[in-house]
């Protein structure tokens, strides 16, 4: 029983790490431009496909992981430069909706260039290898994605809080006009923001590919399940996104194990909607999520 629970928790944590990375990618761009970037979904897929492609070309595993992340980041920066930059100063809702179509476009490109068939994510160890922890068998894949997720999250926080670029990013996020007045090149900073968000997407894609161990063009739609985490954490808060990502990952796995069977016919696949239900319940109490900023409104 106890082993079962630990196994579930480990699964939930690694799912949560993936959600957290996905959510962080959304929040980073939201803070910089108040745009909810739906193009993040196909960027995840792109990351996973690039990783598979690079490995197939014979590039060592670690190197292709880094390569996939950087390339995805570059793609994100290119999207920013080509599509988002002309939209600066225009209606933010229209801009967000625009990203949906950028997403469709990228998704079609992935299908055209990568094909639709499923493939496994290559790993240097046996994909099904497990290690015993406290009496539970835990997939090595899960542990690696957990660790990689934590390292990336830590690195990102260091970047945001302790580097000059990070300070500039935070400045551009809080007030574009004031940042320009202080000589911060907001356009370039936005590009950098999108680049880092793309890197996170690349990593997220690799991890999502590793955990259920399949890569197909629909991989990015997992982001639909990460939305509750973003909202639960509060759109403005990277820390909230990460915490909520882990919470949602664990909740989803636990709901699948304990709630689905309890609900009978209605419970089939119920874990897919449970995070949304949980999010709605939390929002009733806290309309801006757990860590979101409640804006003071004046007429």
């Amino acid at each position, binding site marked *: 029983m106890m082993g079962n629970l630990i196994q579930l928790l480990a699964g939930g944590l690694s799912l949560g790490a993936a959600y957290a990375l996905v959510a962080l990618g959304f929040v980073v761009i939201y803070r910089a431009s108040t745009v909810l970037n739906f193009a993040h979904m196909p960027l995840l897929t792109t990351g996973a496909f690039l990783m598979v492609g690079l490995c197939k070309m014979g590039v060592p595993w670690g190197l292709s992981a880094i390569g996939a992340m950087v390339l995805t980041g570059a793609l994100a920066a290119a999207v920013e430069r080509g599509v988002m930059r002309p939209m600066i100063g225009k209606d933010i809702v229209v801009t967000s909706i625009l990203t949906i179509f*950028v997403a469709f476009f990228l998704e*079609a490109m992935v299908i055209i260039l990568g094909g639709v068939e499923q493939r496994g994510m290559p790993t240097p160890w046996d994909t099904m290898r497990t290690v015993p922890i406290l009496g539970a068998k835990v997939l090595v894949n899960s542990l690696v994605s957990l660790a990689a997720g934590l390292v990336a999250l830590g690195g990102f926080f260091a970047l945001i809080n302790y580097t000059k670029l990070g300070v500039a990013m935070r400045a551009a996020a809080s007030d574009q006009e004031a940042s320009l007045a202080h000589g911060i090149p907001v356009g370039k900073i936005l590009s950098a923001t999108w680049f880092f968000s793309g890197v996170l997407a690349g990593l997220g894609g690799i991890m999502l590919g590793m955990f259920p161990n399949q890569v197909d063009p629909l991989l990015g739609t997992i982001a639909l399940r990460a*939305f509750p985490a973003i909202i639960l954490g509060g759109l403005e808060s990277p820390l909230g996104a990460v915490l909520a990502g882990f919470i949602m990952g664990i909740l989803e796995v636990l709901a699948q194990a304990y709630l689905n069977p309890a609900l009978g016919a*209605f419970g089939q696949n119920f874990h897919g*909607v449970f995070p949304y239900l949980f999010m709605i319940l939390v*929002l*009733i109490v806290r*309309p801006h999520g757990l860590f*979101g900023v409640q804006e003071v409104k004046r007429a």
Partner: protein
Amino acid sequence: MPTKPLQTRYEDDQKLFPDMWHKVGLAIAIPLALAYPFLVNSQWLTVGNQAWVYIVGAIGMMILTGFCGQFSVGHAAFIYLGGYTTAILGEQLGMPFWMAIPFGGLVAAAVGLSVGPFALRLEGYYLAIVTLGLLFLVNHTLMSAEPLTHGAMGIAVPMHTWFPDEPGGLGNFSETLNLGPIELTVERKLYFFFLLIALVSAYGAKNLMRTNTGRAMMAVRDHDIAAEVMGINPARAKITSFGLSSFVAGIAGGMYACQQQYLTIDQGMSFMMSIQYIAIIVLGGIGTVFGAVWGAIVYVVLNPLAEELFEVAKPLLPMLSGLSSHQQATLLFSVVVVVLLIFEPLGLLGFWLRTKRYFMAWPFKY
């Protein structure tokens, strides 16, 4: 910079068709719409039927997002609720489809009103994601209520013209009806039925913009606190717009069911449908009935066009054949929307206003 001509009398401000453009447009559009089913082949007739369905759905979305400024990703939930209600009433009670469609609207409106209270506390993306949650919940419920909806199998939509176990009736709907020289096939009958609904909803939405209720919605959209200071009740405006919008969406769902003849639902499909409607109103121009109508028409027409275009492009670009026809249409549509929105965030409406201004000011620049 779309501007209205200066109005000096209240009557001008309240006119339903304020200038010559509207009247000329209607005088051309209505005969064209009536003649359309007799001028085209069956493929384009289907496109015509779809256009009416999407116009009604887009008007529903426009009431919520365009008039009241509430951004919703849950529109497909109401569409499917309306569609499934129509199908289930037809199957279980043998209710005629034209009688079941309004019930579909009512069921959708009931669920829509239940989201209203959330709209009072949440705004912007928070509300959008809550409506996305609603969509998935509705989707899940429809999937698991198997005795009624047949789950993943899908449900056929019966087209009774009258209750089957009662005498009287209006003939068999699937039979061709001959009115003198005019031959009314099923598709053409549906076309005129849909045309009627679409005209009523477009007229209703246009009128709504002139009523107290509609103007309150627009005031809440433009500045909710200022609206409240002016004595408008934002809560009421928001809940009304949710109710009206989901009612119209439910009607559109019923029409969709009749047009498709078979309903299935899955998470990805329903999400895509919500996105389609958002795309339609943004493409058309947010906040106007014009935008809903033209956005829907362009969206529907782009689908067969995409098919033909890719048919031509395939020999030149063999890698395109990896896409399904639906994906091809989506690809073309997204390129069109991205390019259009970058140059004209007001969508087709913006282009129309620009063209109109050019000709009105000619030979001057402005």
